[in-house]
């Protein structure tokens, strides 16, 4: 009798969860209850990191500091040029009379749980509703795209990786501009390119970037590098694999992206100023 009640409730929950969104409050409450489990799981990792941080000696820290300072210098130098290029790009788009979206905001989050199997490739991060994360938000790390958020709880969120068999991401080949779709295959750090015709101009080592189509991922982030190309005789498309740029098994921190939904306005006034900066930068 009790089994019957439990079974009926479970089936109802399954159907409701499948068709509607009413279960979100229930999920939120339950996720708060299981939060201690996630915290407990993270303790060994955290304490190890704490130990490592607190036992590094002065010389090592100094060296790291030096390295980081030089890296910051390099990045700043590159950014100087970036500002000029951004201006120039906006101006060129202005000439073409097309609007253009730039400007993204990030916050960082750390991993608390990883679930990588052939059927599901999910990770959990330690930020949720409280930081205004939303379902469909794209997630990157310092190298490239990792995935998108599929579930937001009050204190944690679940991310579907681009390598999940149920995930597809619109990409374009950076060298040629050819647009295609990359799908996950359940193997860590590799994705498939199932829709490339045999006569496509593509070479191993070509960088794939997000194309911005589909509206989930903002344009221009690196996704993967083409690693394996093999003709498949008798089929319409060739067999192509790519290695993701972001190595998911070596990541502890991820960045969440808020892309600018409003297109940048076409520069209405003083068209001379951006020209000036561009020339200066060169």
């Amino acid at each position: 009798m009790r089994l019957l009640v439990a079974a009926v409730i479970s089936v109802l929950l399954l159907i409701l969860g499948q068709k509607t969104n009413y279960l979100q409050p229930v999920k939120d409450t339950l996720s708060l209850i299981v939060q201690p489990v996630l915290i407990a799981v993270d303790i060994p990792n955290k304490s190890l990191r704490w130990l490592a941080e607190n036992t590094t000696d002065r010389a090592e820290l100094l060296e790291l500091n030096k390295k980081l300072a030089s890296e910051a210098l390099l990045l700043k130098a590159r950014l100087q040029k970036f500002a000029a290029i951004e201006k120039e790009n906006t101006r060129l788009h202005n000439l073409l009379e097309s609007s253009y979206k730039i400007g993204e905001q990030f916050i960082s989050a750390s991993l608390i749980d990883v679930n990588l199997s052939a059927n599901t490739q999910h990770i959990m991060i330690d930020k949720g509703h409280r930081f205004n994360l939303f379902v469909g938000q794209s997630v990157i790390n310092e190298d490239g795209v990792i995935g998108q958020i599929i579930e937001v709880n009050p204190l944690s969120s679940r991310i579907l990786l681009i390598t999940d068999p149920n995930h597809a991401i619109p990409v374009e080949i950076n060298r040629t501009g050819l647009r295609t779709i990359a799908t996950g295959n359940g193997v860590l750090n590799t994705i498939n390119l199932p829709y490339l015709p045999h006569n496509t101009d593509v070479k191993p080592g070509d960088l794939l970037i997000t194309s911005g189509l589909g509206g989930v991922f903002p344009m221009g982030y690196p996704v993967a590098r083409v690693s394996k190309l093999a003709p498949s005789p008798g089929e319409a498309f060739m067999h192509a694999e790519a290695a993701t740029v972001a190595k998911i098994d070596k990541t502890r921190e991820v960045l969440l992206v808020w892309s600018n939904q409003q297109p940048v306005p076409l520069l209405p006034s003083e068209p001379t100023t951006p020209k000036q900066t561009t020339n200066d930068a060169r």
Partner: protein
Amino acid sequence: MHARSSGSSIIYLSLFIAMCFSVLPWTNQIATWMPNWTLLVLMYWSIALPHKVSIGTAFATGLLFDVLTGSSLGQNALIFSLTTFCSHTFYSRLRNYHVWQQAIFILFFLSLMQLLALWISQLSQQQSIGYHYFIQAVSSAVFWPLVFASLRSTRRRFKVQ
């Protein structure tokens, strides 16, 4: 009265630890070979102390497990309730079995449950079926004697009854 309440807390604590084990971030290969710790612990308690672990407990544990692993809400709740129901039905027989005979029972039962899980998750997303899907049932059966022995000694030590 005091003994009773401490008994329940031991059961809940063991379930909590099992859940922690289930979500520990393992690498890909190890994760495939990980037994279903939570279900094994639940099974042990419902065979050893059927009056303490009701189907309601199993249902609640399953719901929490669903949220923890991100499977559709209700999937593991159903599986855990079914498991506890079967353990309640067969506990007097299972207790007389040798621990390896119990393991074989668990192998078949968990394979069946994996099939149910596959069937449920296929409602929402595409799943490719392969032998790797049933590895968990095998490893759960292999680890059963370990779980059985450690939980039995815990039960005797803390006099849970």
